[in-house]
């Protein structure tokens, strides 16, 4: 095989990808939640969630994540996370008892203030697995400054997660565009 064909073939393989779109949603201003209720958890070991241009209706509110376990929303303080955030300095946000993990930290809602980023989720499906998140995002917070946040979240109970809820910590959503993908194995 000529070298050029070999390279083309390799690139073609890369181009085809194994990341499969499950669902894309755009919020309407005033929405209070965005639910992904058919995440095909038995088909994928890893999911990618992209979140673009999140802006809360109430200033300085973040975008939380909760899981559904066999259709029931888990809203108790069972979540744990460890995030590092960097703005004018560097700090840690750590908890072993919280009612959500985070997609986006507290974000401003003035013109130009928003947040965008992504989360990888691991082992959501299956009743014998715990559920994990790896997150990174950037945002403009309510003082107009830039902040970057990254880290991991965790729901330690063994349960089948079959849905993901995105919601502002309080108030409603002004803007949010999100897509959920499954990583084929």
């Amino acid at each position: 095989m000529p070298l050029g064909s070999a390279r083309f073939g390799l690139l073609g393989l890369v181009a085809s990808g194994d990341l499969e779109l499950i669902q894309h949603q755009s919020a309407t201003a005033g929405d209070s939640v965005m639910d992904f209720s058919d995440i095909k958890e038995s088909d994928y070991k890893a999911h990618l969630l992209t979140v673009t241009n999140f802006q809360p209706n109430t200033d300085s509110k973040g975008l939380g994540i909760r899981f559904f376990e066999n259709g029931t929303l888990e809203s108790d303080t069972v979540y744990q996370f460890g995030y590092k955030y960097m703005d004018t300095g560097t700090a840690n946000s750590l908890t072993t008892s919280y009612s959500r993990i985070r997609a986006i930290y507290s974000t401003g809602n003035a013109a130009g203030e928003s947040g965008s980023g992504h989360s990888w989720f691991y082992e959501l499906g299956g009743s014998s697995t715990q559920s994990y998140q790896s997150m990174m995002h950037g945002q403009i917070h309510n003082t107009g400054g830039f902040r970057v946040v990254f880290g991991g979240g965790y729901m330690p109970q063994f349960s089948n997660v079959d849905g993901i809820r995105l919601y502002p910590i309080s108030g409603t959503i002004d803007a949010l565009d999100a897509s959920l993908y499954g990583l084929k194995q």
Partner: protein
Amino acid sequence: MSLKLISTTEVTQGNANKITINPVFSADYKVYCVQFQNTSADTQRENNSMDVRLVDSTGTEITANYDHRNLMFRGYTNAPFDLGGSNRDEIALIYHDKDDNHGNGNGTMWIYDPFGSNYTYHSFQETGSMAYPSSTKLGVHIRGGGVHKANTSITGISFTNRDSYDIETLTCRIYGLKQ
């Protein structure tokens, strides 16, 4: 399939200080994955690096209104430190060195909605090797993100080595994430 290869740029034995890939971002995708691999410079120095900048829809490289914040592991024996700041002239820094000194940069940027006329955010990870101090080789890892703070439609990206050194090697593949 949702991850679509849009552009492949390969530099070998390069003789240019700047590599510009434009146009590559469009209304076809909201989210892009930029993978850079095997980057190096043609001249050795400590803290050798490339500036990453965005290109607007007129083809002009943007040299202002960037903030970026990162944790940088420069060598793996000391704690990481903060890298970046406000009102920079680059949106990210890729650390590497001369290729025959085994300096090398590899990583991924995720860029969110660059083509829309809004602020453009990215998240960034690099793992490679560099020299500090002088020509002492170290492993390097950088993790963070940045923003271009203007309501500008972005169509491209550029890489510029510091000190006007030429970029010796660079492979950049840009993917669109279908939605």
